[in-house]
């Protein structure tokens, strides 16, 4: 199978061609304002470098920051109606209660509360009221809103109310996009509802972006299927991505860590992705990034997404090097993408971390004579400073005393030497385009998060049921059933309640079924 992986980042659009498990070619092109011409340029370049015709490509995987940036920058967001089922409960805190005002205003601040929802033990809070929902639909139609997010109390345990309400709203609002919260999030009503509303307000944009990606592939003559990567390092097909754009949030760090694991062949390691301005450091466990445990905010909105636990610091190839009170300061300021004009070794006037690496003879880049005047003491002190910064960041992500290897990827990888602290450094081939490789090798996942009553079933039965449901979700998302493996199981009793109510979370992954 021949596949292309693309990572559309803030600065560069990277593309790789892979034949099976071999990286055939990898290129970088500048990300363009319209995104798509940059994708076309990267695609054409990588096909040329690999000496392949477009028809040879079976499948394309794309990682993009487009939707995250739309929310962060409050642009291209559709007016959205939030409809929550749970009355009389939940009235204390209406939808979007904790959002930044400008984002709430950007999508119109339209929210309705209706009856419905379930208790933690599956009882109904109040019956769904079809007349009430048709009244809300009429009001939504009158206001000309075509994106709707539906949330219901305990819908991860029982999504019946959301599905029925979604059907009623869809019938009354032909052509509207409807997002059900249970399709996206987990327990925690406000966070799950936030994700559903953000998804709904991105639906117009996602239709355009997915159509444009399809157009870019078509322009290059590629006719294979294409997928987008999610924040957990797994794939969704184009039709699914169009319905769930919110799931692309934070896929960049995940792709680079997954790519690092693949390129190095190491599944348990610490990954350091050194770019031009910043370095991202995270822990890789069984080939997947360790997830953050606390609520993650996107554009100022609290969510409970599965996000990788990544530590970012201001160290990159373009970091400014400055002498300061007997010591040396490296970063956080950087020349960024202007490295090849601003750095000393490229004829510029700014001393950067890359110049130090060139002066130390660790890499042959630009004009080495231009950094020959740097004092040996400065070079040594800067290298020691960078080594210490990397060691501190790595130690922060290192969760066991085991001597895990450190995989270093990204364009600024030259800053890392043979060891970071006491840990050995691995620099795989194609390290500069690890994130595009991560996109190319992404798998398909399925997940479940439910509350089980262990008064009526055993813990083993509950876990088995959760595994079955997660597997069904993965297969529905395109995984080959015979490749599915469980990557995460967690069961936490709900505190302060008798009846042994236990929250179970299971995640499985499998290879993409391209047959």
């Amino acid at each position, binding site marked *: 199978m021949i596949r292309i992986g693309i990572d559309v980042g803030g600065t560069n659009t990277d593309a790789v061609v892979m034949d099976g498990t071999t990286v055939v070619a990898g290129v970088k092109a500048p990300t363009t304002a319209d995104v798509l011409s940059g994708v076309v340029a990267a695609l054409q370049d990588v096909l040329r470098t690999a000496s392949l015709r477009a028809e040879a490509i079976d499948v394309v995987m794309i990682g993009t920051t487009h939707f995250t940036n739309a929310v962060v920058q409050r642009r291209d967001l559709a007016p959205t109606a939030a409809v929550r089922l*749970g009355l*009389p409960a939940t009235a204390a*805190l209406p939808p979007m*209660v904790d959002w930044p005002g400008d984002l709430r205003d950007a999508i119109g601040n339209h929210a309705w509360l209706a009856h419905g929802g379930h208790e933690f033990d599956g009882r109904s809070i109040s019956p769904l009221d079809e007349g009430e929902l048709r009244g809300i639909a009429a009001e939504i139609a009158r206001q000309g809103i075509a994106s709707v997010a539906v949330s219901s109390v305990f819908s991860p345990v029982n999504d019946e109310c959301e599905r029925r309400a979604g059907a009623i709203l869809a019938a009354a609002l032909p052509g509207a996009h409807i997002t059900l919260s249970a399709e996206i999030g987990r327990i*925690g009503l406000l966070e799950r509802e936030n994700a559903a509303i953000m998804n709904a307000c991105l639906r117009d944009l996602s239709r355009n972006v997915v159509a444009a990606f399809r157009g870019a592939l078509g322009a290059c003559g590629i006719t294979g299927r294409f997928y987008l990567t999610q924040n957990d390092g797994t794939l969704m097909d184009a039709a699914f991505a169009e319905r769930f754009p919110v799931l692309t949030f934070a896929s960049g760090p995940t792709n680079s860590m997954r790519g690092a694991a693949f390129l190095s062949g190491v599944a348990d390691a610490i990954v350091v992705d050194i770019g031009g301005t910043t370095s991202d450091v995270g822990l890789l466990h069984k080939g997947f990034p360790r997830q953050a445990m606390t609520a993650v905010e996107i554009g100022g909105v609290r969510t409970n997404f599965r996000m990788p636990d990544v530590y970012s610091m201001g160290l990159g190839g373009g970091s400014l090097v400055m002498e300061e009170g007997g010591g040396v300061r490296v970063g956080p300021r950087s020349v960024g993408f202007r490295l090849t004009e601003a750095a000393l070794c490229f004829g510029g006037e700014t001393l950067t971390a890359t110049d130090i690496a060139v002066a130390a003879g660790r890499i042959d880049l630009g004009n080495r004579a231009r950094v020959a005047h740097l004092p040996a003491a400065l070079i040594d002190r800067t290298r020691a400073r960078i080594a210490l910064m990397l060691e501190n960041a790595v130690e922060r992500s290192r969760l066991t005393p085991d001597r895990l290897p450190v995989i270093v990827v990204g364009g600024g990888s030259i800053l890392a030497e043979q060891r970071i602290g006491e840990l050995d450094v691995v620099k795989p081939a194609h390290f500069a385009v690890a994130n595009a490789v991560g996109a190319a090798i992404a798998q398909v996942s399925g997940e479940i998060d439910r509350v089980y009553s262990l008064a009526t079933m055993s813990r083993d039965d509950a876990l088995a049921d959760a595994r079955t449901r997660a597997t069904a979700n993965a297969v529905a998302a395109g995984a080959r059933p015979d490749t599915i493996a469980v990557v995460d199981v967690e069961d936490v009793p709900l505190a302060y309640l008798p009846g042994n109510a236990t929250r179970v979370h299971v995640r499985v992954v499998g290879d993409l079924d391209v047959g």
Partner: protein
Amino acid sequence: MDASRRIEADDLEDIAIGGAVLGTGGGGDPYIGKLMAQRAIRRRGAVTLINVEQVPDDALVVPVCMMGAPTVMTEKLPQGEEIVVAFSKLERLLGRRIDAVLCCEAGGLNSTTPFIVAAETGRPLIDGDGMGRAYPELQMVTFTLHGVAATPMVLADDKGNSVVLETIDNKWTERLARSCTIDMGGSALLAFYPMSGGVAKRAVVRGTLGLAAALGRTLRESRAAHADPVAAVAGKLAAQHVFDGRVADVERRTVGGFARGAALFDGLEAARGHRFRIAFQNEFLVIERDGAALATTPDLIILLDRDTGAPVTTESLKFGLRVACIVAPGPAQWRTPAGLDLIGPRYFGYDIDYHPFAPA
């Protein structure tokens, strides 16, 4: 400390963080309570926080709180009026105006719930509580030590139901109220322990809401200044920094609705080579170093994220998490024979006696 203070909506940010620190691993995430209190204050105006000394001896004081599973409340948000309904019904039952609102539990979610009632009813809130931290059961308040009955008590739910309890003792109140809470959907809001201003002056653990605000502010400011947040929090609590460590194992089980278990930690830095064990029942209750007890309830065993200083709960304990452990002396009222009968290590089933924590 002498004058009344006005608590505005933004002040709740610090109080919620500080409340989570005083939760000693339990008590629930104050997030939902914080949002509700902020909305009530924005609608009705600031809350007046007073010292218990300002309350006349013959005044009527009533504590309020949420009971049940905090996880349930993050999903089934309250209707909004429950806690005020409970408060107002108890007021009607008692036949006289309640003069001040009281917090029963300054740790966790209930650090914020009394602000909702104070803002909605315009009554002052006393700076203090009945625990000085978080505990899992309803009778585990200093009010019990002073002979205050938990009843008459009113529980209210999201649907408009309310239940009045009259019981023979506070342990029965816990038992019956817990059953009601389940039927009400896993969480309920209540008003209870009516007492006079005179009794409140003897019973209340003083200044704990102000302390929560100070802890939250300290954490926020030390982070902004890139200073050590753990040292800053320890300083505010007169706590000792006991160890830094990584979670090596967590064992959990549920007994009668309470999350019990223990976490093992491998010491880091100065504590390297030592192994620590913290037993918990919703809250952290006993800490051992290399098999020997170091500190127990009622002293406050607090875990903070080693890097950010964020309070760590028993539910978020996960293999590999890097934490700092600090121990602060528990409120003096708990460190008495009667206090230890209610909340000492033996009440929770640990075969050890309480010894005030003494740093090595």
